């Protein structure tokens, strides 16, 4: 293939790929991350519970999620569940798998962040009459949030890249679009590098978003 034709394919593939990112990769990552964070907060609080059973359940969940491959989790939900009579469409399957995955990883981040807040902060909250729940919400979590931004950003960036796995359960996100174009044009190298570049640009944008958020949350600490 002459370079001109290669360029042409590059430019003509750009919009389909970007649109795959906009309609597939990004919403998949955002929705799964949001649901995963809510789940993670609950799991983290369960893990911190003094009740052995409650913390044991959380511990088991985290262990399973972190100890098994995401691809296998996706397969179990999409290809496995139908055999016990539970068929879920590609998109919801992907969102369930990714949310559960984020839930497991982020739970440990949030737990560590909560534990990193000085004990005196809890005590000060109690002495002004707060309940445990209110102390957590008003005093502890805002401080834990600052600590968890860097590791949670990593989780999110990993998730954006991991959404490419959804292509194997037929979700039309960017990488599935890339696979189609590549198969059709037979220009595997070009198209997959182009897809890689777009992932990279998205992750660069996320990193700078992370810095901005950290700066904002840093307004109350000494520099």
């Amino acid at each position, binding site marked *: 293939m002459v370079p001109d034709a290669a360029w042409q394919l590059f430019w003509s593939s750009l919009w389909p790929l970007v649109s795959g990112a906009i309609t597939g990769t990004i919403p998949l990552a955002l929705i799964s991350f949001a649901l995963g964070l809510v789940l993670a907060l609950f799991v983290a609080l369960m893990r911190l519970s003094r009740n052995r059973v409650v913390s044991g359940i959380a511990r088991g969940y985290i262990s399973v999620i972190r100890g098994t491959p995401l691809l296998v989790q996706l397969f179990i939900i999409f290809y496995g569940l139908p055999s016990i009579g539970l068929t879920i469409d590609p998109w919801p399957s992907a969102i369930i798998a990714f949310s559960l995955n984020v839930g497991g990883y982020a739970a440990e981040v949030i737990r560590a962040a909560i534990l990193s807040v000085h004990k005196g902060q809890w005590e*000060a909250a109690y002495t002004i009459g707060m309940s445990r729940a209110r102390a957590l919400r008003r005093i502890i979590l805002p401080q834990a949030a600052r600590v968890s931004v860097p590791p949670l950003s990593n989780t999110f960036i990993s998730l954006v890249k991991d959404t490419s796995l959804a292509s194997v359960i037929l979700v039309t996100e960017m990488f599935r679009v890339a696979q189609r174009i590549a198969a059709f044009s037979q220009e595997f190298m070009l198209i997959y590098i182009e897809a890689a570049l777009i992932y990279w640009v998205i992750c660069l944008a996320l990193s700078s978003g992370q810095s901005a958020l950290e700066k904002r949350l840093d307004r*109350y600490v000494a520099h």
Partner: protein
Amino acid sequence: MSPTDSARQADADALLTVTGLHKAFGANEVLRGIDLSVRRGEVLVLIGPSGSGKTTVLRSINGLEIPDAGIVTAPDGIRIDYSAKPAKKDILAMRDRTAMVFQHNNLFPHMTVLENIIEGPVQVKGVSKAVATAEAVALLDRVGLAEKRDVYPFQLSGGQAQRVGIVRALALKPQLLLFDEPTSALDPELVGEVLAVMKELADEGWTMVVVTHEISFARGVADEILFMDGGVIVERGTPKEIFTAPKQERTKQFLHRILSPLD
């Protein structure tokens, strides 16, 4: 003093009575029968060597520590008997009546000075933000920190932070103020500004329980002094009795050590 003596002393005027307080951390028996009572408007000062259990006594009063045994009573029929599991509502009632100033100010670092002060009144007591703010500003003004209302705690000196901690406690309008060595973590030149505020509060009639090593403060402000050692109250009396004529050998040794550490 035996428990019966202190029970007699716990007259109707008492804002707080503590009897038979026991607490162990594992095998470490930290409190071995503490009795005390504070009357309205009185300042009780706890002194004693490090590790003698002073902080644990204070924390048992507001339920930050759950003692193994002992009875804490306060007006309006509050009576917590720690030989059984205490009811949550009783502990919350004690916290509602008390406020605490910590050795390390424990201000909320993610909130401005003003937000720190109004957090309790607004979030817990349901005071409107406007009213709480007006009261907070007036209190800040009183301790000379009006211009600091919108800064974050990290921008304050240790002495300023501790004064904000006192204002945060006052804003709750407690019946009883608890101070746990509020000046021990401060540079020496900042101690005076904090003690001055505390003395003013005492003069105004606030009821206070103060753990401190500041002997001149104790001498000038305390109505009663308790000397603790090894989890018991070794001696109690007026400042005059304790500082000029201590009866117990351990009290004498302790006072000698802190008043003339080089001898």
